[in-house]
């Protein structure tokens, strides 16, 4: 049966439709500074344990040096048995994972089968290679399917690595230190969650691009446990709302009242059945 895709793959390998437009676009901005896309500046990690896969992520999204979102969700749903953590440009990770999820849903409806993690990986790799790194998405894919528990990473240029544990994002070196030290094959669930939590915590403390809370997603044959937040940041926002402004603090300079002329066109009554 032919595989159908949500969006048609282009007939030839590379698509440069937008390249001329982008070149013209860049000239429109002052000093040749086009707007910078918002990066997530992240720590994400994943570990394969005895009964499945644990994925973890922090929740800070930065726009260069300013925190844009303190509670952003970096663990994306792909299919009931596959979840994906995304680092890099926020829009790219969102849209790429959405597209992947749609494609896999169409596949499972067509074939009546649960999608496998390798399929997700191949679709992602295909798409990211086609765009030659212009899509800045560093993804960690984890899932459980009929062939076992799998953890993959896909880079922005389309590289794929299959590993039992890994970390990505700007805080990856800090997180990897903890993972390298604590990882063993066939960990128990609680130990695996602890390990991922510790590695994300290391990323949050050592990396300026990561921070706030920790999200964890546990995927097993029985189902998915998406714990958001797994651990709230110990730095609570304790600012008291004591900067109050009396009504009238902002001066009203002019006032213009425009009455809307409304006329009744049709009036209907609908009875509701209430018990």
């Amino acid at each position, binding site marked *: 049966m032919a595989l159908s895709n949500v969006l048609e793959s282009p007939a030839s390998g*590379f698509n*440069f439709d*937008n*390249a*001329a437009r*982008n*070149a*013209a676009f*860049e000239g429109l901005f002052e000093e040749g500074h086009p707007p910078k896309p918002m990066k997530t*500046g992240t720590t994400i990690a994943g570990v394969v344990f005895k009964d499945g896969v644990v994925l973890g992520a922090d929740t*800070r999204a*930065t726009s260069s*040096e*300013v*925190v844009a979102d*303190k509670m952003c969700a970096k663990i994306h749903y792909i299919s009931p048995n596959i979840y994906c953590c995304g680092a890099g440009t926020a829009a790219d990770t969102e849209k790429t994972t959405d597209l992947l999820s749609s494609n896999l849903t169409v596949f499972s409806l067509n074939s009546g089968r649960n999608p496998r993690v390798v399929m997700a990986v191949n679709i992602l790799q295909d798409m990211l290679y086609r765009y*030659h*790194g*212009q899509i800045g998405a560093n993804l960690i894919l984890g899932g459980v399917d009929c062939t076992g528990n799998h953890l993959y990473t896909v880079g922005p240029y389309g590289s794929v690595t299959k590993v039992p544990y890994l970390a990505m994002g*700007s*805080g990856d070196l800090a997180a990897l230190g903890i993972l390298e030290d604590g990882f063993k094959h066939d960990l128990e669930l609680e130990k695996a969650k602890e390990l991922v939590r510790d590695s994300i915590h290391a990323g*949050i*403390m*050592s*990396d*300026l*691009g*990561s*921070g*706030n809370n920790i999200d964890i997603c546990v995927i097993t044959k029985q189902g998915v446990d998406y714990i958001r937040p797994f651990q709230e*940041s110990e*730095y609570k*926002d*304790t*600012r008291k709302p004591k*900067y109050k*402004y*009396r009504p*009238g*603090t*902002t*001066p009203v300079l002019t006032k213009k009242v425009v009455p809307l002329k409304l006329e009744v066109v049709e009036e209907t009554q609908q009875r509701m059945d209430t018990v």
Partner: protein
Amino acid sequence: MLSAQNFGESGKMKEYHYTGPVEHRFSPYAFNGGTVLAVAGEDFAIVASDTRLSEGYSIHSRDSPKCYKLTDTTVIGCSGFHGDCLTLTKIIDARLKMYKHSNNKTMTSGAIAAMLSTILYSRRFFPYYVYNIIGGLDEQGKGAVYSFDPVGSYQRDTYKAGGSASAMLQPLLDNQIGFKNMEGVEHVPLSKDKAVQLVKDVFISAAERDVYTGDALRICIITKEGIQEQNIPLRKD
């Protein structure tokens, strides 16, 4: 890697040519982050800074305050490139000693500010990458704040924020201390306790949204009794 830069007008590919060896310039500056704030009151001055020293996305130190005590009535806050901050404060200390030995008296805040302006301008064509704010008491015992740019332009203010989170702090100070953009509000003179509380709140807010600000807050309160220091923890993530 093929990219949009290879396309000129009308979508035709530009002529491919070898650009030759590319020289990567060594940059003598680095940005080490940090935020500094100074407020002048009727008979006190406050200089506050966070204590985080960072570079890129890494943290060098969580305990590197940016306020330096110059005299019993003057504190300077320096943020920007840490190497230049250290050298500049050493130079200012040496000049203060020289002044003391020649003139047999300590430099006043206004004099230190004027001197710093000439020190900074002497390096007009290879500047000290430092954003300075001096806080202290003037000859009449009133609070004084002098804010500088990296090449020595300065002015006396009532309050000023400098460093990485300055754009976030300055509007709030304009509103709460300068009573800007408000109408019908009684202009109560700022008390020392209210000013300290405001500084703490404002830094907690800055630490929430600026990645380079955090770890701890060092507040130096300058009164005619002397300089009192307070340390308040901030977000460490």
